[in-house]
Structures are given as C-alpha cells and as structure tokens.
C-alpha cells in the first residue's frame, strides 16, 4: 500500500509537469491537443542524444552524482532538451496549429493533433528504433534508501520528485510574482481583454508553448531517468496527462498539479486493487467521474 502510494506520488509529479502545459494550452487555444504528450518523448530523446554527445565530448561529465545515477552530462542534456522541446513546440504550432487556427475551427485542430502525434512518434521510431533504452545502466544497480525491505525508494526517485516540485514552484513564482506571469494568466482567462490591456497575444502564445514544451521535456527526461525510454512514452502518458488536466480544471495550473498527483496515486493504488491489465483504465474512470460530478474540474470555473 505504502509502496503503491509512493510510486503514485512519483508518477503523479511527472504527470503534473506534463499536465501544467496541456492545461494552459487547452485553455488558451481552446482545443484538445492529442499530440501534446509527444513533447515528453521529444524531450526524453533529445536528452538521450545530448547526454551521449556531452559524455563523448567531455568525459568528466560522465561521472554520476552519487548516490544518484544522474551524470553531469545528463543534467546538462536535460536543460538543453528543455530548450529544444520548447522550440519544437513553437515550430509545431507555427507549422500546423497556427495555420489551422487562422482558417478553421478548433475541431480541425483536434484532428490535426492526432496526425502530429503519429508523425512525431514514427519519426522517433525511424531514428531511434522500437527498442527500449536507458540513460544509464547503473539504474539497475542503484541502491535503496529505505530501511524497510518491502519499500523501494531509490535516490533517483527522490531527486525526480524534488526537481519536479522545484520546477512547479518556479512556475508558481513566475505566475504570481511577475507581470509576465500575470499576462499568461490574463490571456488564459480572457484573451481579448488581455490584448486591450496591452498584452501581445502572439508573444504569450509562443511563451506558453515554450513553457509547456520545457516542462514536458523535464517530465519525459525524469520519467526515463527512473524507467526505460521507448518511443511510446508519449502515448503512455497521453491519457494520464489529459485526466490530470480535466481533474484539475482546464486552465488551472494548480489544478493540473493536484490532478497529476490524484491520477498518479489512483493509478498506483489501482495496481494493487485491480488485475494489472485493468490498471491503465484508471485515468478513464477518473475522467468519467469528474465529468459526471464536477465537469469544470476541481479548480475550473463554472460556466457562466
């Protein structure tokens, strides 16, 4: 039970990071972006590429920060991956979604997002293959922090949770302490009024794509740090990330954070209570329950 909750908290932190960006994008651009979770895959694979590059070019970076399996090269690669994924999100928007936004209705963007997801996933398969990969072989030998032999807590998992919380805190500070953050919240609430208040809409949309892409890259990399990396990572996270967004209320950053933890813990507990084959259905059940009981989500606004 405790192990299931701990695993759920860890998964929840990663889902939360992914859900924050999706929540902002869905609220701001008014469409369900089914290609969004592929940004996790772009980030995780970008980190893999840069990790290999930095390890080869600067061998000293290949040293792990004991007791973590995280190396200097991977830490640096993760930062670069966040930038690359943020820019990728902007490019995808410019090439696909922006064009459709200007000419067609939101439903067209939803269908386009399915296509974008397939393209990204298959390009990753083409480049990296179907097989699973690891950032570090040391992951299998990572030692355990807990004293209870039935509870497995690895240093990497503590790091993942800590970094995810730090990133969320950083975003909270930006949103609540800077006028840039006020502008993001203003555009999310009322884009027309935000323009009247002097906010350049297109600039904020670009900024939100960058933030969403960066957080997704962090989520993808952190997941792959404690698990295996494969091209289906985006597909695997699609439903949990959507469930977290809907649970929290579309447009609410704090709702997305809470929603991520709820979905993560519920999915963890489901593994205990249900046959393993049914556990992936848990996000579906959560979405259904929320849509029936509180359609606007925990932090979402009631329609006026």
């Amino acid at each position: 039970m405790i192990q299931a909750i701990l695993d759920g908290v860890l998964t929840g932190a990663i889902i939360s990071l992914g859900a924050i960006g999706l929540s902002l994008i869905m609220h701001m651009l008014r469409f369900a972006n089914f290609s969004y979770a592929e940004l996790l895959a772009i980030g995780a694979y970008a980190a893999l590429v840069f990790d290999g590059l930095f390890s080869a070019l600067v061998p000293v970076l290949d040293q792990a920060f004991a007791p973590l399996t995280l190396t200097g090269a991977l830490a640096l690669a993760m930062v670069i991956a966040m930038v690359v994924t943020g820019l990728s999100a902007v490019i995808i928007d410019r090439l696909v979604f922006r064009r459709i936004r200007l000419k067609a209705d939101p439903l067209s963007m939803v269908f386009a997002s399915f296509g974008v997801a397939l393209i990204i996933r298959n390009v990753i398969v083409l480049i990296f293959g179907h097989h699973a990969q690891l950032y570090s072989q040391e992951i299998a030998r990572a030692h355990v922090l807990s004293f209870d032999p039935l509870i497995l807590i690895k240093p990497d998992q503590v790091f993942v949770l800590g970094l995810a919380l730090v990133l969320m805190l950083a975003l909270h500070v930006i949103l609540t302490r800077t006028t840039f953050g006020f502008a993001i919240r203003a555009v999310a609430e009322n884009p027309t009024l935000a323009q009247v208040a002097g906010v350049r809409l297109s600039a904020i949309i670009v900024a939100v794509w960058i933030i969403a892409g960066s957080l997704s890259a962090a989520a993808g990399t952190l997941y792959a740090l404690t698990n295996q990396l494969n091209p289906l990572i985006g597909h695997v996270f699609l439903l949990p990330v959507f469930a977290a967004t809907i649970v929290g209320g579309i447009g609410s950053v704090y709702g997305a954070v809470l929603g991520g933890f709820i979905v993560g813990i519920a999915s963890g507990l489901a593994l205990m209570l249900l046959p393993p084959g049914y556990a992936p259905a848990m996000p579906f059940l959560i979405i259904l329950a929320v849509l029936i009981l509180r359609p606007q989500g925990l932090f979402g606004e009631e329609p006026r």
Partner: protein
Amino acid sequence: MTSLQVEGVEAGYVRDLPILVGVDLVAEAGKLTTIIGPNGAGKSTLIKAIAGLVPVSDGRVRLSGQEITGLRPDLMGEHGLAYVPQTDNIFRTLTIDENLALTLRGSHDPRARITELYELFSALRDKQREKAAALSGGQRQMLAMAMALTRRPQVMLLDEPSAGLSPKIATEVLDMVRGLADQGVTVLLVEQNVKQALRVADHCYILAEGRNQVDGPAAQIANDPVVGEIYLGGKRMNAA
C-alpha cells in the same frame, strides 16, 4: 489634447457582411461624446472597431490626424487610446493589484502609478490583495476604469459602463466619466441609459442600423421630441 476622428468606417465580424456602413464621428478633445441608439444599432461594434477588435473593411480612424485604423489592440495604449469593454472588463482570477500591474507592464515606476490610482479609487485600496472576482458590480467598473487609466490615456472608449448597476451606482460611475472629460481626457461613451448619457455628455451621435442618423449637442438632442420619438422610443427616453 487628442481628438478622435472616424471617417466612413465600414466594419463587421464577418467578411462582406458589414454591421457599420459609412459611419462618421468626431470626438472632440477634452469633451464627452456619447453614442446612443436602439439595440443592434452597431454602437458597441463601432467602439470595438475603433479599439482594433473588429476588422475595419473601409474608412479611417485617426487620433489627432494620426491614422490608427486596423492597429493591433495591444498597441492602442501606446497611442494614448484606452478601451473599457461592457462586460468581462477585469481579470477575475487576478488580484486588484495584479490587474493594475498587468496594464503597467514595462512602464517606469508602476508602483507609484498604482498608488496614485488607489488615491483616485479609494474603494479598491482596501481590497488590493483580493481577487477581482470578489468585487461588487460598481467596484468592478471602478477597477476597469482604473486599468484603462493606468497609462494616462488621452482618449477613452467606454462601452456601457452603467450596465447592470443600480441607478445610484450608475449615476456615480457616469459622474466619474464626466470627471475624466473635465480633466482633459477625450471620452467616447456608448450608453443604453439615454437620459443619463445625455446628462453627462457634451455631444451626442445617434446610430441606427449601423449608420449615422442624427448628431448634435447633447442638451439639444435631449430636448428634441422628434428625435426622441423616432430613434429613441419617445416616452421611454423621458422615463429612463
């Protein structure tokens, strides 16, 4: 002081389906000009077209001769023009302070300006850390006006600021609008409350079916029974 000129403006939400047809209007510098007319006349569309929120397919909008037609709405403030929408004119999820700070992005010493505005709108000062959603209708209008005033606009466009307010609060709000004009701000006011609008305005335009109908000094329009009967529902105007 800045004046606003609208020349032969044609505008609408859908291409080839204009709501406004050849509308002309001049809001003189430091005066309060009001636009009145029946529902669906195009009053709000005109004010939105001036603010850059509705595409203008023909005609020109100028501020003291400088053309601003089709300028992005977020750039209007830099040209000295501020717009207060009728509804949804504050960010309910932001605090009062955050609403004001947002409109002062990039300006020098925003805190000093916010303090000045709290002097002007003292009812907001005690609630500066509260979410704007907690404000009453009258306080929301005050906040909306304070947000529009942060950058010291030369021209203010107000879309029915008294809508949904009690008669007492509506009078206070419109008196405040009159005060802005008295301080030298050029005000263009769209109002459904005809009697109140004509009370505070210097000049009045009547719009119907997206076209200019009549214009003249507000006092003259208010006392013209023919104009009232034809365009403003006669007895309704006097009863308003």
